């Protein structure tokens, strides 16, 4: 019973909880966060169960109301969507656990609205990943985006302004996508992805289909923050409250990248997509520029959250680069990086939240050596995530880089290989800058606080545990990457 309805349950569970939270929150404000955690927890369990238990029976097509497409809407629960759904739900679960005290500190009186919105956000994300219908995808995209705008607006003074700018550019992205879908609909007469895939080869060179492809890719690229459409991201991520950035940064852009995979690899397939306009080449070059641009800008930042935001632009580049290589290794590298980067970024943003909790800021220039003694475990998590971001073995980040490197070699693209390697070095620059400040006394400072006067002042376990779990998780993902990669390999369209 539960198996059959699993795809719908995973997503709609969030809808139910968003309502429950509002209803409960009116009476009991303190129940909102536990309920949100429960909601994310249930969906995480379901998606993990679905991924593990029904792996052999996939793909599972779920028709809503038993209306078969093209009339009805379907959810496609195949290996790829099962994987991505699992990643985003589990990450969200831990981030929500972490959010309890941050919420009390940063927006005590908006908790009900906040947690209800997070549930809607997750509904949107899950829907985007699961749906098998292009228009339905648009609707979920907008549900996710609207809740994302609202979540981003909760934060520092410029947050609503940053959210407004994001709204403008995000809506343009969504509209372009919708326009593209319209063109595809006129050409094929269906909106169902599977149906359309079957029909597209005969229309692939039509002007309307090519236009549709370009519009859709451009629209989604805006939501992915692919260079040069990244302008909204740094402000949005750095002005919002700590827990929103920890929730949105690891997930938002990844889900959009997933949509790109769906469009380019499943709906069209790169053979058709590249037929008229070399989409994969263009994406690859933009991604490569984005990788370098993001890393260099991250070095120039003085605020930790802003630095991490630029780093996200760079990391998104890895994912798009992997997809654009059009070979199994690149694809595996990209998907693994979706997982790795979600965990790393969540961990890093949680560290930033922990520091803001205790210090009231996350300004790198004010970091000093007392942190190593005050927040030993937070800084340990930071070190792990940083090393993983730089890509040193055996942490997770190394392996996505390894597969991406194999992909670039297989594609014979030496420039991209160089980009990946150089970017690692740039990552090292901006992470070691912080590590240096935190683990060493400043030799320039006139007077350093002696270690003896510093006492441990670590954040509470509810914030520390998720941070730690992610830090350790990076090691585990790294060591167990073969199991994951073998599964991912099977998801490569057309087999390996």
């Amino acid at each position, binding site marked *: 019973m539960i198996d059959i309805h699993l795809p719908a349950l995973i997503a709609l569970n969030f809808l139910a909880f968003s309502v429950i939270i509002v209803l409960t929150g009116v009476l009991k404000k303190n129940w909102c966060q536990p309920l949100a955690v429960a909601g994310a927890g249930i969906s995480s369990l379901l998606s993990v169960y679905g991924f593990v238990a029904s792996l052999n029976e996939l793909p599972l097509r779920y028709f809503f109301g038993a209306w078969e497409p093209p009339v009805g809407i379907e959810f496609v629960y195949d290996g790829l969507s099962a994987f991505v759904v699992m990643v985003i739900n589990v990450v969200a679960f831990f981030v929500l656990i972490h959010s309890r005290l941050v919420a009390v500190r940063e927006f005590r009186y908006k908790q009900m609205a906040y947690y209800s919105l997070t549930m809607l956000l997750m509904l949107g994300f899950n829907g985007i990943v699961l749906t098998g219908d292009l228009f339905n995808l648009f609707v979920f995209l907008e549900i996710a985006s609207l809740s994302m705008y609202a979540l981003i607006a909760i934060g520092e003074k410029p947050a609503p302004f940053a959210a407004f700018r994001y709204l403008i550019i995000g809506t343009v992205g969504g509209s372009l996508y919708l326009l593209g879908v319209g063109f595809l609909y006129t050409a094929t007469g269906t909106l169902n992805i599977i149906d359309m895939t079957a029909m597209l080869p005969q229309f692939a060179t039509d002007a309307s289909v090519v236009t549709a492809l370009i519009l859709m890719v451009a629209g989604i690229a805006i939501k992915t923050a692919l260079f040069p459409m990244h302008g909204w991201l740094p402000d949005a991520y750095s002005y919002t409250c700590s827990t929103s950035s920890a929730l949105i940064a690891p997930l938002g852009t990844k889900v959009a990248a997933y949509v790109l995979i769906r469009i380019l690899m499943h709906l069209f397939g790169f053979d058709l997509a590249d037929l008229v306009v070399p989409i994969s080449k263009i994406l690859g070059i933009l991604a490569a520029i984005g990788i370098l641009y993001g890393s260099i800008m991250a070095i120039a930042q003085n605020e930790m959250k802003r630095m991490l935001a630029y780093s996200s632009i760079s990391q998104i580049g890895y994912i798009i680069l992997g997809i654009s290589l059009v070979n199994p290794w690149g694809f595996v590298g990209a998907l693994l990086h979706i997982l790795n980067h979600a965990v790393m970024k969540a961990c890093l943003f949680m560290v930033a939240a922990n520091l803001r909790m205790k210090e009231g800021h996350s300004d790198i220039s004010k970091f000093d050596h007392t942190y190593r003694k005050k927040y030993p475990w937070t800084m340990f998590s930071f070190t792990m995530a940083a*090393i993983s971001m*730089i*890509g*040193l*073995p*055996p942490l997770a980040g*190394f*392996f996505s*880089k*390894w*597969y991406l*490197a*194999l992909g670039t*070699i*297989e594609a014979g693209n030496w420039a991209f*290989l160089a980009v990946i*390697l150089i970017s*690692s*070095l740039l990552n*090292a620059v901006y992470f*070691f800058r912080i590590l*240096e400040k935190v*683990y*060493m*006394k400043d*030799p*320039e400072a006139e007077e350093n606080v002696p270690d003896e006067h510093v006492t441990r002042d670590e954040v509470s376990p509810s914030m520390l545990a998720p941070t730690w779990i992610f830090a350790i998780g990076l090691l585990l993902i790294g*060591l167990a*990457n*073969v199991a994951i*990669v*073998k599964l991912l*390999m099977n998801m490569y369209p057309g087999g390996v």
Partner: protein
Amino acid sequence: MELTYVPLLAVLISLVAVVPIMLSSKRPNLREGWTILAAVVKFGLVLTLLPGALNGESVELNLFEIAPGIPFLLKADPFGVFFAIIASGLWIFTSFYSIGYMRGAGEKKQTRYFASFAVCLSATIGIAFSGNLFTFVIFYEMLTIATYPLVIHKENREAIQAGRQYLVYTLTAGLLLVAAAALTWYLTGTLEFRPGGIFGDVDVSRPMITILFILFLGAVGVKAGIMPIHSWLPTAMAAPTPVSALLHAVAVVKSGVFGVIRVVGYVFGTDVMADYNLGDILLVLAGVTIIFASLLAFYQDNLKRRLAYSTVGHLSYIVLGAALLTQTGMMGGIMHIAAHATMKITLFFCAGAIYVNLHKENISDLNGIAKVMPWTMGAFTIGSMGLAGIPPINGFVSKWHLATGSLEGDMIIPLLILVVSGLLNAGYFFPIIKRAYFNKGGEELKKYGEASPFMVVPICITALLSVLFGLFPNLFFNFFELAANISAAIFNGG
């Protein structure tokens, strides 16, 4: 006896020791006890592998798959055991010496120091026992990261600069190694270290294999201190002396040259090296490095920096041995790993003892110190004579084989380089000895005595070992036989 898990245990023991070391940070004696216990156990474990290695056997332990088609493979082959014995054996002496040094110099953050040291040793043994390139990459990067806290230990401006430079060099090297490994895997479909190489029956274009070799060279060459990518090494002398001694004379730089020989003998294979003229590239670089490093050593007044340049030069002896592509030359190179390790560690220990005892770092201040520190300076003399290649110290044995090897390959220039370098070595070491013994020291020297026994005893033992291995190369560990076997295996393809 079942030895399958010995390599793993040998790697893990010092990693596990980090936990008790951290926990007993408030009780220094207990903490150092753990370090020494781990060092002794590790050495014992490595020694059990020696008999098998002498018979040419390897102990393999395939732990799990780390990437599709690539196992996380620990393989204690003769060459690995050879390197592991040197690294773990000298760790014991360094541990004792560290106690004397760190307490004598009143260094802070000693727990971090000993913990990082233990991790470094795990990484080094891991490098020695890596059965394939991927495992090698993992431990190589681990060594980079674990060494960083040691380089910056003093937390002053100089140390931080040194740390940055160290990271830039070694992280770049690590990335090149990743690229090289990926390319190797793409070309050959395997990453295993095999005596005689894995490129034997792969058809690769000449530019491709040259690029690949240069990538490898950049990767392992940084740690091996090949010019022009050596300059992190003298800068890293900002670290406390035991770090310079063990890491920059034994563990880190030797991992580099170990990597060079792995690449030459076990990845490319000497035949492929010769076919594509890759040996020549290496030979030129090694020759230039030997001469220039020796010349640069003359200009250093800081004792540790002079030793550092000497290290750069002597590492290239080993690289030269590999680059000759002759069996005797390779053997000489491998021998020199052991010989240089015992001699250079003695010299660094001496430098540290002088620094802790007399607070002198510069050579120009060393007048007459032999009267105060007779044991230390005696050991220093032995070490420097050995590096200059004077018999009966073990530097002579390896140098002899290097020279024979170059003649075996009908090459005269490498021989000349060795001779000139020997003279230069003598040229920059003997003034130090002359100052210490024959110049008159200042009055203030009278109030000092010999350094603490924790330091002097290890110094004397390593100096003694240098002499003993020079007289009896097969003493204790059969280094001579082992090196000959390894070299033969490389040339005969296992």
